[in-house]
């Protein structure tokens, strides 16, 4: 069958296909066969992935398969739990069944992070304007996802919240526009400027606190095959109430920090080295500190202007 947008399908049909393991998500460079019996996974998927393309058949050749379900038969019925199973041994912690969306998103991250070698993956959010990209590096407490979501409101398209996906043959980034994961206070912030419809219902009491997801927009999904040239690399530092500040980072240091957080740089080998080095040839790298989202957006916009992009 030809691919259709999730939003054009009845929820029941998506649920049946998910239960049968016949739902294939085609997003950016990856096709993923999804399987789940959970009605919560179905509901979440129909909502947050509504603009994404899927096929409903079992003979699809896919990059990854992901099952999201109970760790065993008992936990499907008694104090139900849910866990992502990417098809290889991975010590994932079972979650209470109502956290199904988290299990799905964790599973989607795992499948790509641990099984993709056709691209070099870095742990960063990526947005772009006119196909020039800003990478927002991840580190704890940095505010990567909040800033990524905020940049979406400032006229940038979303490439990815979780991975900067670098081609091996040339230094361009591949989109993989999945939902942006928001934690705790940042949920209110993003909801305030993106609107209620853009954000999923909240999951309280997860291992990471309260979590909600901001949907990738139709335009982001439609540009999912359009690569962008990385121009700016940002290491964000959020401290509540802090005055905005900018520090330049030596490319050599920035490269080391980015490579250290890559799940597959080592495996990809020489092509990863060459492409990463080529990327840093024309990449401006900065640490920014800020106390509120408006400041962070303004800092990034100014730095982006300076790159001449």
């Amino acid at each position, binding site marked *: 069958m030809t691919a259709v947008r999730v939003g054009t399908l009845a929820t029941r049909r998506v649920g049946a296909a998910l239960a049968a393991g016949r739902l294939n998500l085609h997003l950016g460079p990856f096709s993923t066969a999804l399987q789940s019996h959970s009605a919560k996974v179905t509901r979440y998927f129909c909502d947050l992935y509504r603009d994404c393309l899927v096929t409903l058949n079992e003979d699809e050749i896919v990059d990854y398969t992901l099952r999201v379900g109970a760790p065993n038969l008992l936990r499907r019925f008694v104090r139900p739990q849910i866990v992502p199973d990417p098809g290889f041994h991975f010590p994932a912690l079972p979650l209470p069944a109502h956290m199904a969306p988290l299990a799905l998103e964790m599973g989607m991250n795992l499948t790509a992070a641990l099984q993709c070698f056709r691209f070099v993956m870095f742990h960063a959010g990526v947005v772009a304007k006119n196909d020039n990209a800003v990478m927002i590096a991840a580190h704890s407490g940095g505010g990567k996802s909040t800033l990524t979501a905020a940049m979406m409101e400032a006229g940038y398209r979303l490439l990815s919240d979780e991975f900067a996906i670098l081609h091996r043959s040339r230094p361009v980034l591949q989109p993989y526009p999945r939902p942006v994961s928001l934690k705790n206070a940042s949920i209110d912030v993003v909801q305030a400027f993106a609107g209620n419809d853009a954000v999923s219902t909240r999951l309280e009491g997860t291992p990471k606190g309260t979590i909600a997801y901001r949907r990738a927009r139709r335009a982001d999904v439609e540009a999912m095959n359009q690569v962008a040239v990385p121009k700016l690399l940002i290491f964000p530092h959020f401290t509540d109430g802090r005055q905005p500040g900018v520090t330049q980072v*030596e490319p*050599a240091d920035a*490269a080391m920090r980015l*490579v250290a957080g890559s799940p597959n*740089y080592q495996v990809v080998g*020489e092509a990863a*080295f*060459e492409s990463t*080095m080529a990327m*840093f040839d024309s990449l401006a790298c900065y640490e920014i500190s800020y106390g509120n989202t408006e400041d962070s957006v303004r800092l990034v916009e100014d730095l982006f202007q300076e790159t001449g992009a």
Partner: protein
Amino acid sequence: MSSSVEKEWLWFADQSLFSVREMGEVTYIYSLRSGNTHVFNAVSMAMLQYFVAAPRGVDELIAHFPDLMGVTREECPRGVIRRIFGELDDAGLVQPVEKRA
């Protein structure tokens, strides 16, 4: 490394087995043999180049390296030279090529 092995062999760095990119004050080196990326400062880089030029012994290195770097022997003690050489050896960037006569 046992010092007898170090003394008995000549060491060589095969340029075709690594890829080099300068970035600011450091050099990124990708080793095709190990698949590892190393970040070298000017001193380590100079030592690597010393072994690219020709197979050499560690005692030669200890004798020549301070001059090569334009520093005195006191500024560049043999312990430091040995340690840096050990890093090149551990990384597989220098290889034993022939036994000394």
